[in-house]
């Protein structure tokens, strides 16, 4: 693909660009799903294309095409320049990029089993066995399962001399059991809701998840929810399981720290942020127990936000975001780093596929586990009265990332250190910084899981991105519970 990039860079340079980069991307996806004993989706998709990003007259232009012939590539580069010149008509200042030593590198996701090497028959057999197990429970009216594999190979080249070849692999798997009775539909999912668990890993993830082993329990819980009491309303102490805490992090930490949001660049769609530049290293984001990092390095784990280099050639890094409760870091890019006094980008510019403009996205935004050994069982045992909530069912937050409301699939009331009853339709709400400042305990490493959110939406035109969120179960004091159902 080097020749493709060179055609584009030369065509751009000839038209007076001060900077240009080219991404050639080849994607492959396999998606399999079953529903109530039948295969639903069965598809194999590939998409190949290239895009050119340029700066001309101090303004950005971007163009993308699925055609990789020389004429088409040069025309795409020319189109990017035309777009940039139009951008320059409405600007207030020139684009300024933080310097980055151009990297020449190869990187690929480590894996043990190539998921595409597993036969489709084996995939379907697994899904249907899970389906059978789910529907063996009386009261289950709908069972859904899914397996997804993605490979993305990218060649990044820039006019500064960067030349990076990266291959990322991801695997996703999960299922949901629904029980409809009377005037209620209850649902339980495993290992997580809305598509399951996703990591940048091979098929070994599917073995690790023990999907079949948990199916009956999950189905039984879906049915049992019908007989459970409605989650009480009021102010309670709250324990969130690891997966729900992962989503809480995504919505109320990951998004507000995106520097482009803070700078107003997402105002028309995804919104802005309650964070302002002056709050960095001054604002108490959470209690002393709250330590959050944005870590794209492989050492952090095989999260959906793990890579070798971002999509403008900056190496993966770890940025402390919240340190003992103090707000200490933003997600930044080459264009935005200077606004927070940084000399280098934080390496978070990412794009979905070949035809989308890279923008600041979460990498792996994770809360660090507690240093002292603490299991979930021990956390529960140390709690007088609380509601434990597991597995997300609904999520909503305002456009500055302040007021949120989450609903979960299942809850448990804890009294005197024991789970005493199951509760249904649990929900909770709050204000971001008040919530994080109420955290008074977090479980340790043994309870920590690096969850994957495969479909975070942002940008215009919209694009989706996989993000990772590591979390252990944690406890929060005096949280408003049940607000979704107050009447």
């Amino acid at each position, binding site marked *: 693909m080097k020749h493709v990039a060179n055609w584009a860079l030369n065509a751009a340079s000839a038209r007076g660009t001060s900077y240009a980069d080219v991404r050639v991307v080849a994607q492959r996806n396999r998606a399999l799903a*079953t*529903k*109530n004993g*039948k*295969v*639903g989706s*069965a*598809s*194999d998709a*590939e*998409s190949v294309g290239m895009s050119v990003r340029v700066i001309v007259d101090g*303004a*950005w*232009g*971007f*163009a*993308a*095409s*699925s*055609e990789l012939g020389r004429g088409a590539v040069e025309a795409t580069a020319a*189109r990017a320049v*035309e*777009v940039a*010149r*139009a*951008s320059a*008509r*409405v*600007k207030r200042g020139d684009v300024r990029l933080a310097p980055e030593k151009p990297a020449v590198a190869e990187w690929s996701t480590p894996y043990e089993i190539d998921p595409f090497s597993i036969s489709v028959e084996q995939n*379907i057999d697994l899904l*249907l066995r899970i389906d059978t197990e789910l529907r063996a429970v009386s009261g289950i009216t*709908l069972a859904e399962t899914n397996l997804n594999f993605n490979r993305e190979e990218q060649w990044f080249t820039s006019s500064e001399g960067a030349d990076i070849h990266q291959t990322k692999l991801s695997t996703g798997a999960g299922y949901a059991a*629904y029980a409809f009775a009377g005037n209620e*539909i209850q649902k339980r999912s495993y290992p997580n809701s809305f598509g399951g668990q996703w990591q940048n890993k091979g098929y070994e993830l599917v073995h690790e998840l023990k999907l079949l082993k948990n199916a009956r329990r999950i189905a039984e819980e879906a049915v049992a929810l019908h007989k459970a009491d409605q989650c009480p309303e009021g102010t309670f102490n709250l324990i969130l399981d690891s997966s729900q805490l992962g989503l809480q992090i995504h919505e109320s930490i990951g998004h507000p720290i995106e520097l482009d949001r803070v700078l*107003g*660049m997402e*105002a*028309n*769609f995804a*919104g802005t942020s*309650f964070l302002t530049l002056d709050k960095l290293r001054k604002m108490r984001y959470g209690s002393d127990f709250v330590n959050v990092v944005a870590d794209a390095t492989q050492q952090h784990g095989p999260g959906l936000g793990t890579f070798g280099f971002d999509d403008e050639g900056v190496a993966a890094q770890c940025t402390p975001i919240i340190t003992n409760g103090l707000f200490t870091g933003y997600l930044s890019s080459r264009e935005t780093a200077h606004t927070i006094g940084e000399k280098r980008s934080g390496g978070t510019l990412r794009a979905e596929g070949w*035809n989308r*403009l890279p923008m600041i996205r979460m990498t792996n935004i994770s809360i660090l586990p507690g240093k002292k050994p603490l299991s979930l069982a021990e956390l529960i045992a140390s709690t007088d009265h609380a509601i434990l909530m597991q597995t997300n069912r*609904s999520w*909503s*937050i*305002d*456009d*500055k990332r*302040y*007021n949120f*409301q989450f*609903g979960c699939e299942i809850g448990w009331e804890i009294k005197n250190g024991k789970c005493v009853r199951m509760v249904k*339709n649990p929900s909770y*709400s709050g*204000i971001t910084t008040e919530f994080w400042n109420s955290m008074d305990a977090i479980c340790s490493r043994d309870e920590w899981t690096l969850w994957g959110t495969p479909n975070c939406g942002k940008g*215009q035109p919209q694009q989706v991105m996989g993000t990772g969120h590591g979390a252990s179960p944690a406890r929060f004091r005096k949280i408003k519970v049940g607000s*979704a*159902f*107050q009447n």
Partner: protein
Amino acid sequence: MLKREQAGDIFDRIRKLSTADEVEVHFSGGDFALTRFANNTIHQNVAEENRVVSVRTVFGERTARATTNKFDDDSLRQVVKSSESLAKVQHPDPDLLPVPDAKEALGSERESILVPSRHFEETTNITPEIRAHGVKRIVHVADHHKLTTAGVFSTAESFEGIFNSRGLSQWHIQTLAEISISMMAGDSSGWQKANFPNVANLDPMKLAETAAQKALDSAHPRELPAGKYTVILEPSAVLDMVGFMFFDYSGVAILDQRSFLTGRIGKKIFGDNITITDDVSHPLQTGSPFDGEGVPRCRVPLVEKGVVKRVVYARSTAARMRKSELRDTVGRIESTGHGFPLPNEIGEMPLNIVFASTDQPRTIEEMIRSTAKGVLVTRFWYIREVEPFEKMLTGMTRDGTFLIENGRVQCGIRNFRFNESLLHMLSNVESMSMPSRSSGEESFDMVVPAMKVNDFNFTEVTKF
């Protein structure tokens, strides 16, 4: 852009490469460009072209799909091979029907729907320079009012087509131009969005001035307590709420018992003033006139005067429902041309929603004048389903929320979170405007009115 004749040639090549009993090929793609602005500057500006071919092969009762965006011989050979390999290992689906031919797709009971052209050269002629000029004028409005503006101006030309081995051939081309504008003051904001196939129908200055006025009028917002209020919802706010129920107007959703309409078809669940149709031919609608198998879309009355009349069906869903124990409880069963491309597990969905006007439509100004105390909502944001059977939704107000007192807009107010059931909301609509083509962010474009709704449940207030 791919032309129909070119697609036909590609289909012929694919068919020759395939050993399957049946072949169905989808084509999609086009040219898309978007100029994005923020802080009164164009900060992102993109252009894209793409063409996709998606091949479904059928061996008896087994089917699968493979997709590529490469059209050379090797790539077409590979995509056929992928589809066939995947199809041969599927479990047989006894509900799988043969691909339709053109005559069968029309059906004996189907009325012929004429869809107006949705392709305009005025839109295809828009260049990056013209979009930049449009943004410049929007920025001037912002500068004039001392506001900060953000938004998009986009244009698209797209195609969609289906060919199959029984001779069915469908093709649709369309253009779409869209402008979305946010205007921001120190502690307030306003928003407007519109799109049409013909860019000439867009009035960027009117959108800019309206958004600006909302930002100015909602400055220094007061905080009201949470509670139940009479609300006047502008069309985008209505659209983004009601959009959450249309996935349930599906035969498969009824069969799967995941629809909130289970046990409710034929029953009155909304107010008398709610009548909803799916109508791809409506002059204010967009989209292709055929579904994922090439079956032409019917006009389907979904709700009449609050009574749920029908749901939509793909071909095989209709066949399944006719054999189901639910068949006598779900109204008319027929293939309506709303199926998603096969294979899928979700069946079908209405995508061309049109709300009927009432006998006495009211303008938003008239609704405001008739309101002793209430809240005017420009739009909602981050709506999610909390409870599926009562269709309880949660979300936030955004970009222009106002207190109405004694028939007048008094001031801006801090944004609310709501938790409200669509069943309750659509049973408490006091008055509606004439429906108009509207666009939001949480659901697809529709023809919907503004609505004055009583007892709307705001449960919390945010900090701005």
